[in-house]
């Protein structure tokens, strides 16, 4: 690692693969970094999407012992049929330990018929449908505040927002492809990936940031590669549709049926025939797949002679997302179709998609998913900050950086600190918005972006370091005060959650406090950070004086080497 004349010769030599990979890594990382950071953070919290949703619906009861799945299905179906007797299709999602409430949606009969609901939602493509949450034991309709819950973060992660989902998925996919390039180029560029495995140099400015970025990247490398590639595979039919497009529609439908279940209703026979008890069908599912093996029950044309009951397997039982279901004749009880296998291509896609979603994970594995994903988020964040730290040292005039530097610096603040603020803001809106407000769920989401935009404005108006510190402290406060806000505005204060052993609420609030502490620590360190003195700055001051006097006293004497303006020792190429 010595700066000898051979280094000068090496610089004249053609750029090696490590250097080109480094350039590629920096470009792809930078261009996609801000969106990738948002995708990573919202994806990370999505591993606890159900828990976040419950936290945002404090009116729902805390978890209790789950009653028999078959009984639950029957009671919920009966409840739906009382409200919408002629419904052609209803789907009941059975309660699980993570989500102990039954939910359902059902297609409403045409307007004017009994059961048509005023103000029912309309699906794109026509057809109104009703939806609701049901108590698992009594099938009583539960009412909770209007909110999208954790589902917002999950959907934002691949759809983004304020744009057609297709656009969002294309942007997310492009960023994911950039990420894949960044991962591979990053590994190639990281020369001493094994030797430097446990290297971390504290308090060394740029090198510390680089070490942090490397550690976060390398330790989580299996996850980061898996999550990026599987994310692209999830939407592979969108990004590479030509194989499917080359098929005729019936074959296309058959391919899709290998990947997702979709069983539309038959034509109604017009003859009434009683539906067999749903508990029988659920029991057959549990016989086949084990206790808790049934995830959902769909009933087509209840009360008609052509009724069908489709029993779908619980996703948490398996990794692959390929469809496993049983189709029964609803009136005779005969099993018409059993799907529990898909072809190798669909299974491969299903396993990769399943690994991405992590729905199979037990609580420990889920926490590992969350923590390593959080490390991935920090990997992207440290990469973005590293870009500015590295170049700040090389700025000819640190008070007047070039436009690109200013842009990256401000976008970093908004993308990183601003996002934390926005996400915490959604929880604040969840607690504070009036329950009867129109468009309440939409306004909770607007709150995220309003705060995020405000953070961007703050980042543009304030000096960069102050903006970082102020926004990080604000985010820390917003997170830390949520338990208090919950205690003041809901019936679920943290002391009751702890005493009752309600680990969804208690766990959420402890995690919020931990994240608040993390933001506070970052704010504190940033606040206390003093850039190292660079004596060469005095030479740079000279041109700014009005009189073009060459102050001989401040030019570095030949005996002093020009201080390291971040010329990297040979061997460090990032």
């Amino acid at each position, binding site marked *: 690692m010595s700066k000898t004349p051979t280094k000068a010769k090496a610089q004249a030599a053609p750029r090696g693969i490590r250097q080109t990979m480094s350039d590629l890594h920096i470009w792809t990382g930078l261009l996609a970094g801000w969106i990738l950071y948002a995708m990573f953070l919202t994806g990370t919290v999505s591993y606890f999407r159900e828990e976040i949703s419950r936290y945002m619906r404090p009116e729902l009861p805390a978890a209790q012992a789950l009653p028999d799945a078959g009984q639950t299905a029957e009671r919920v179906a009966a409840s739906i049929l009382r409200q919408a007797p002629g419904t052609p299709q209803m789907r009941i999602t059975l309660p699980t330990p993570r989500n102990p409430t039954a939910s359902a949606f059902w297609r409403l009969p045409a307007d004017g018929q009994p059961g048509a609901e005023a103000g029912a939602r309309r699906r794109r493509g026509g057809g109104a449908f009703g939806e609701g949450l049901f108590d698992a034991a009594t099938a009583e309709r539960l009412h909770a505040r209007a909110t999208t819950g954790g589902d917002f973060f999950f959907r934002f992660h691949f759809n983004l927002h304020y744009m057609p989902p297709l656009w969002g998925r294309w942007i997310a996919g492009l960023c994911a492809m950039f990420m894949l390039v960044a991962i591979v180029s990053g590994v190639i560029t990281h020369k001493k990936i094994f*030797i430097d*495995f*446990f*290297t*971390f140099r*504290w308090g060394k400015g740029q090198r510390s940031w680089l070490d942090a970025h490397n*550690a976060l990247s390398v*330790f*989580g490398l*299996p*996850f980061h590669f*898996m999550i990026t590639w599987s994310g692209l595979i999830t939407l592979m039919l969108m990004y590479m549709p030509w194989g499917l497009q080359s098929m005729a529609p019936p074959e296309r439908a058959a391919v899709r049926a290998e990947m997702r279940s979709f069983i539309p209703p038959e034509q109604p026979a017009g003859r009434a025939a009683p539906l067999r008890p749903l508990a029988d069908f659920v029991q057959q599912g549990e016989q086949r797949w084990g206790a808790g093996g049934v995830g959902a029950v769909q009933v087509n044309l209840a009360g008609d002679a052509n009724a069908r009951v489709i029993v779908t397997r619980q996703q948490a039982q398996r*990794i692959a997302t390929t469809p496993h279901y049983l189709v029964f004749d609803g009136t005779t009880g005969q099993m018409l179709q059993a799907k529990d296998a898909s072809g190798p291509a669909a299974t491969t896609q299903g*396993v990769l998609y399943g*690994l991405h979603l992590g729905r*199979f*994970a*037990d609580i*420990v*594995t889920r926490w*590992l*998913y969350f*923590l*390593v994903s959080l*490390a991935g988020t920090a990997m992207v964040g440290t990469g973005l900050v590293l870009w500015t730290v590295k170049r700040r040292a090389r700025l000819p005039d640190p008070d007047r950086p070039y436009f690109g530097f200013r842009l990256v610096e401000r976008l970093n603040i908004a993308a990183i600190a601003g996002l934390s603020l926005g996400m915490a803001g959604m929880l604040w809106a969840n607690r504070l918005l009036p329950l009867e407000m129109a468009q309440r769920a939409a306004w909770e989401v607007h709150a995220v972006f309003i705060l995020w935009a405000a953070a961007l404005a703050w980042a543009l108006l304030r000096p960069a370091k102050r903006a970082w510190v102020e926004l990080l402290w604000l985010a820390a406060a917003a997170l830390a005060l949520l338990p208090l806000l919950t205690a003041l505005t809901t019936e679920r204060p943290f002391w009751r959650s702890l005493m009752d052993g309600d680990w969804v609420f208690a766990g959420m609030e402890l995690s919020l406090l931990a994240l608040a502490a993390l933001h506070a620590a970052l704010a504190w360190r940033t606040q206390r950070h003093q850039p190292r003195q660079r004596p060469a700055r005095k030479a740079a001051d000279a041109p700014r004086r009005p009189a073009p006097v060459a102050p001989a006293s401040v030019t570095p004497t030949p005996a002093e080497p020009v201080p390291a303006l971040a010329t990297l020792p040979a061997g460090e190429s990032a």
Partner: protein
Amino acid sequence: MTPAWHLLMFTLCLGAFAALALGMERPQETLLQRPLGVAASRAWRLAGWGLLAAALWLALAAPGWTRGLVALSGHTSAAAALVLLALVLRERWGATR
């Protein structure tokens, strides 16, 4: 996979990365203030890889081996991070003594 399985898995991974660290020069400087010989370093690294092999065996022996492998991946990441954290803290707090 029971909590006990997870605990055993994490312990194996933690031991593995601690052993691997002890087989590398920079961590040896941090922890022992002197580099160990080539033979000792190789022995530590062998022990580390051996423990990782044991962790792999435990993953495959789990009731669902695919879930076991996923858990293994998570535990190795977490264990490596913890070993690094310990090294960093040792260096920071050791230096002030």
